[in-house]
């Protein structure tokens, strides 16, 4: 293994990219535009399976509200679970999907001085959260409109459940995989059909050096991509032009260390690079690389938790989702960005390990397809 050769290859890929503006734009601008568009759409359903917990700290004063909620839950097909006295713990331990917390001092007869009823949600799958909150608000507020004020709070993340907070980590993972996969596939296909792979193999470079050099070169751009997406997603720069206030960036709150998010994406990208190299063997034209999108990308987009949590998938599809690298990347990114977990978290450790395992597996199958005998 020669570091010089690996670096030469990585540098070459960087130099090629520098002159290939459209691809660079695809890698950087496209994800930001799509994220911005999604932010616009979301900040503007059917009820998922729900386990409702009720924590009543106001005693008899809240009996009427409690009855209303229970009746409403029964008619909406919501299961009521016993969660004890701690709403947040119930959500954290996964006992309930949503908890109605009636605070002590709750006084329905004097709405001005009464603390509000809290609706507590996990804040991880905001599509689900929003549907549940809407349902509950209807139940509570519909029955005693004048007496009750309701506040919604998420255990993970901040305050109001904004669908974007949860979509952002998923999309960061998705874009990281998608664009790196496509660009590597096409780039390596060009090596194969353009005669440069033949020439590359006529030098003392080894297969391992080739996949490593490729991984480095493309992961560099994946890292650049994720940096820019993170910057755009997490911060807000606002300024005024001619009296009009312009805000750039989505300002999504980030609970954890951006470095860990970075690590997740880098591992995912190494896998994507090598899957691209591997699959380029089975394509003869650039168009055929695009035909891998329905096979490789679409199932992951549907099943890996971008839109629906793995747990809400039909049971038969759940094991399939567990075979996809994107599943682990999205879970990891959500753990880091929403829950703010660190490396000490067992869940994150598993996710990083599985992603590393995928990367090693794809490196192995990619280097097997680069043979000196390329006919």
């Amino acid at each position: 293994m020669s570091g010089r050769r690996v670096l030469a290859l990585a540098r070459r890929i960087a130099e090629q990219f520098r002159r290939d503006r459209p691809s660079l734009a695809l890698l950087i601008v496209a994800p930001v535009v799509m994220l911005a568009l999604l932010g616009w759409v979301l900040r503007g359903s059917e009820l998922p399976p729900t386990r409702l917990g009720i924590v009543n700290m106001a005693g008899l004063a809240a009996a009427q509200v409690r009855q209303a909620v229970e009746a409403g839950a029964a008619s909406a097909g919501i299961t009521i679970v016993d969660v004890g006295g701690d709403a947040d713990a119930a959500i954290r331990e996964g006992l309930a999907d949503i908890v109605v917390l009636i605070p002590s001092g709750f006084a329905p007869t004097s709405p001005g001085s009464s603390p509000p009823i809290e609706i507590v949600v996990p804040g991880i799958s905001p599509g689900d959260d929003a549907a549940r909150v809407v349902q509950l608000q209807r139940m509570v507020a519909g029955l005693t409109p004048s007496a009750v004020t309701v506040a919604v709070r998420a255990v993970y993340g901040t305050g109001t459940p904004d669908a974007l907070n949860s979509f952002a980590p998923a999309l960061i993972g998705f874009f990281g995989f998608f664009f790196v996969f496509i660009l590597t596939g096409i780039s390596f296909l060009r090596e194969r059909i353009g005669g440069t792979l033949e020439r590359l193999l006529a030098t003392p470079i080894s297969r391992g050096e080739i996949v490593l050099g490729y991984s480095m070169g493309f992961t560099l751009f994946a890292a650049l991509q994720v940096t820019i997406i993170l910057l755009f997603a997490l911060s807000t720069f606002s300024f005024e032009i001619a009296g009009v206030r312009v805000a750039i960036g989505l300002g999504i709150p980030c609970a954890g260390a951006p470095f860990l998010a970075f690590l997740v994406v880098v591992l995912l990208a190494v896998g994507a690079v090598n899957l691209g190299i591997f699959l380029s063997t089975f394509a003869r034209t650039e168009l055929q690389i695009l035909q891998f999108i329905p096979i490789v990308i679409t199932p992951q987009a549907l099943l890996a938790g971008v839109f629906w949590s793995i747990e809400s998938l039909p049971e038969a599809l759940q094991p399939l989702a567990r075979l996809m690298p994107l599943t682990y990347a999205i879970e990891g990114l959500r753990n880091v960005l929403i829950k703010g977990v660190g490396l000490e978290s067992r869940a994150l450790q598993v996710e990083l390990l599985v992603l590393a395992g995928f990367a090693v597996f794809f490196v192995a199958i990619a280097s097997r397809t680069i043979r000196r005998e390329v006919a």
Partner: protein
Amino acid sequence: MEPAAAAPGAAIETRDVAKVFGPVHAVDGVTLALEPGRVYGLLGPNGSGKTTLIRLLMGLARPTSGEAHVLGVRMPSRENLARIGYMTQADGVYAELSVWENLRFFATLYGPPDEAALNETLRLVELGERRNTPAFELSGGMRRRLSLACALAHRPTVMFLDEPTVGVDPALRVQFWDHFRRLAAQGNTLLVSSHVMDEADRCDELLLMRAGRIIARGTSADIRREAGTEDLEGAFLKLAPAGEPQ
């Protein structure tokens, strides 16, 4: 400069080497010993097995049977590739990279690049003025020259040049051949494939290939005399083994 070869004298050696792709005998039992310091012409029609023979010698293909040795080392050998230069039929350069970036990239795969030597190589193929031009902006002939420069940048001892002068204009073709002669005079061994018969006179020796076999070997004059023909094309037709098509 010349590394010791196991078979004394021979820079390139094959023993009954063959490559079969399904029903096709692309190379059908070739035995050769080529001496250092000479330019060998590998002549033959399209599909006669020239490229496959070169790929066997490069170790890019594994022989179905027989052996191929370069500089005394049995191919395939990754380490030995450091002493071999290969100019492919396709240009095999990166379109987005500049002339200089292409050259430096390939040179770096062999060792830390020596800028002075690379500049010298660029001057040789007359691309010094174009060093910052991306390859996709080069004319066909210039790309061919860049391809040659990339094959020679690491100063190989043995060179396989697969149809190096295809698409190269006559003036430049003369320069290419002058350079090949110079390299041979320095003790290097060149095997140059071509289907252009008029390049044959620039070679020290010719190998006529047809249907995977070497059907004749010698200088252009030898071969014509032996076949009793005026030109090499005629010799080709006469020397074709009985029962061969065409």
